[in-house]
C-alpha cells in the first residue's frame, strides 16, 4: 500500500515537472532554465553518489568524465562520425556516456586496485588534470584552449533541453535506485563498509569498484553531453573545470550521501540558492557554494537527510 502510494506520488511529481514548459513561457521564464540546471545537477550528483555514497570511493575526478562527455558529443558532431543528426541525437548522447565509461574502466583498474581512501581522491584529481592537459594540448582536434564550437543556429527553444534533462535525471535516479536494490548494490555497500570483510565474504572488490566508477562516469558523460549541446561552445574552462566535481559533492553532502533522495534534495536546494544568487548578486554563487559546504560539514555532516534520521535514534 505504502509503496504504491510512493510510486504514484513520484509519477505525479515527474508529470508536474514535465508540464511546466506548457504553463510558463519557457523562452522568457527563468524558472525553466533553472529547473534545467536542477536536472543536470541531479544527474551528476547521482553519479557521484553511486561512487562515493554507495561504494565509499571519494572521487575528485568527476569533472573529467563530464568534460569527456561534452567533448565526445562535439567531436562526433563536428566530424560527422555517426551520421545521425546530432542535435539531441540519442545515439550521440549515449556514445557520450559510453566513452567516459570505457575510459573510467581503463584508468579505474590501476587507480582502484592500488589507491584507497584519500589517495584515491588525490589520484582521481591528478587523473582529471592529465585529461585536461590532453584536451588543452590536443591541437586542432580539440581546438586547444579555445575549444570547439557547435553550430548554434540549430537552437530554437529551451524546451527540448528541459525535457531531455528531466528524462535523464529520472533515468539516473532510477538507475541508481535499481542498482542499489539489486545484488550488485549489496556488494557496493559491503565494499563501502569494509573492503577486507567484503573480500572475505566472496566479493570481487575491484570488479565492483570499477563497475561503480564506470557507471558514475557514464552518467557524468550523459550530463556533459547535454550541457555541451546547451553551451554550443565546449572548451576546457567550461566543461573541464573542477566545479563539475565540487558541485555534485556539495549537493550530495547537503542532501545526504548514500541515499536516493539526498542528492535530489541537495540538487534542489543548491540550484535554488544558485538561481537566487545569480539574480541578485552576480558571480556570487561559487562563493556561496564554498560557504555552504563548510557550514553543512560543520553543523550537519549527515546532510538534510540526517535531520530526519537523527530522530529515529
Amino acid at each position, binding site marked *: 500500500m505504502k509503496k504504491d502510494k510512493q510510486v504514484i506520488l513520484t509519477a505525479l511529481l515527474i508529470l508536474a515537472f514535465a508540464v511546466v514548459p506548457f504553463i510558463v513561457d519557457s523562452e522568457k521564464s527563468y524558472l525553466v532554465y533553472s529547473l534545467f540546471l536542477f536536472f543536470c545537477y541531479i544527474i551528476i550528483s547521482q553519479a557521484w553518489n553511486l561512487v562515493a555514497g554507495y561504494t565509499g570511493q571519494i572521487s575528485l575526478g568527476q569533472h573529467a568524465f563530464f568534460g569527456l562527455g561534452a567533448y565526445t558529443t562535439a567531436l562526433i558532431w563536428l566530424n560527422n562520425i555517426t551520421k545521425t543528426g546530432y542535435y539531441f541525437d540519442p545515439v550521440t548522447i549515449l556514445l557520450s556516456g559510453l566513452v567516459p565509461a570505457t575510459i573510467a574502466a581503463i584508468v579505474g583498474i590501476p587507480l582502484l586496485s592500488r589507491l584507497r581512501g584519500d589517495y584515491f581522491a588525490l589520484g582521481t584529481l591528478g587523473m582529471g588534470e592529465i585529461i585536461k592537459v590532453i584536451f588543452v594540448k590536443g591541437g586542432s582536434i580539440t581546438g586547444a584552449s579555445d575549444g570547439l564550437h557547435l553550430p548554434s543556429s540549430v537552437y530554437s527553444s529551451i524546451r527540448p533541453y528541459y525535457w531531455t534533462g528531466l528524462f535523464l535525471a529520472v533515468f539516473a535516479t532510477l538507475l541508481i535506485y535499481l542498482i542499489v536494490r539489486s545484488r550488485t548494490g549489496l556488494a557496493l555497500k559491503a565494499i563501502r563498509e569494509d573492503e577486507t570483510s567484503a573480500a572475505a*565474504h566472496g566479493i570481487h572488490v575491484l570488479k565492483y569498484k570499477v563497475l561503480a566508477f564506470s557507471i558514475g562516469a557514464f552518467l557524468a558523460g550523459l550530463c556533459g553531453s547535454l550541457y555541451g549541446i546547451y553551451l554550443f561552445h565546449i572548451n576546457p574552462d567550461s566543461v573541464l573545470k573542477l566545479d563539475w566535481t565540487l558541485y555534485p559533492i556539495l549537493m550530495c553532502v547537503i542532501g545526504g550521501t548514500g541515499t536516493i533522495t539526498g542528492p535530489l534534495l541537495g540538487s534542489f536546494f543548491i540550484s535554488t540558492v544558485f538561481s537566487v544568487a545569480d539574480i541578485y548578486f552576480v558571480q556570487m554563487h561559487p562563493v556561496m557554494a564554498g560557504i555552504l559546504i563548510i557550514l553543512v560539514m560543520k553543523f550537519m555532516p549527515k546532510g538534510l537527510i540526517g535531520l530526519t534520521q537523527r530522530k529515529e535514534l
Partner: protein
Amino acid sequence: MDANSVVIRLERICKRFGGLQVLSDVDLEVHEGEIVGLIGPNGAGKSTLFNVMTSLYRPDRGGIYLLGKNITGLPPHKICRMGIARTFQLVRTFLKMSVLENALTAAVYGQQHGRKNALQTAMEALELVGLYEKKDMMTVHITLSDRRLLELAMSLASMPAITLLDEPMAGLNPSETQNLLRVIQRGRNERNTAVLWIEHKVNAVLDFCDRVAVLDYGLKIADGKPDEIANDPKVIEAYLGEPHA
C-alpha cells in the same frame, strides 16, 4: 582418520613481519565435520594463521590445500567461494546495512554455484542463529553479541566446507556463549561443516572441541585430544609464562 575426509591441510606455513617470525613451519589438518580448537597466548600467531588461510596475507613459504586443491595465493574472494568462511576477532559486519542485507551479501557472493535461493539461505542462516526477528534492523543498532551471531550466520550462509572462527565468544555473557556453542554445533551436525576455532577461554575449547592445536611464538607446540593437551607441560608453561609455583 580417513585421508579423504581432510577438508583443509596446511603445510609448513611460514610468515614473517619485518624481523618478527610470526609463523614458523605450521602444519595443520582439519577433517570433515571436525571441530578443532586453536589456542595459544596473545601474539602466538593464531589470527595471522587465519589471515594466511584466507589469503589476506600471503605466506612466505608453505602451502594451503582445500579439499586437495592448492589454494595458496588465490585472491580472498575466490577462497571464500571455494569454501572457507571466517569471522573476525573484531567483528567486521557491514554496519550501515540491515541484518538481512548482511546475511544476503554472504549468501549471494559466498557460494560457488549458489545465487539461487540466496534469500532463503540467508533467512535460514539468520533463523539458525536466532536473529530472524531482527532482520530488518540496521546492524549498527544491534548489540555486539548479536553482531557476533550475525557474523556466524554470514559464514553459514556461504555454505562453507570449513568455518574459521576468531574468538567468537569474546565479549559474550554465559547465556550468549551457550547459544553460540549451540549454533556452532548445529552447523556441524546439520551440514557437516568443519570448524577451526581460535579461543581464549581455554576450558570451553577443551570441553567442546574434538581436537586442539596449540601455537606459541609461531610454533605449533601441541596437537591432540583435549585431555592430552590439558596435561601437556609445554602447553601449561606457554600459558602461564612459568610453571605453577
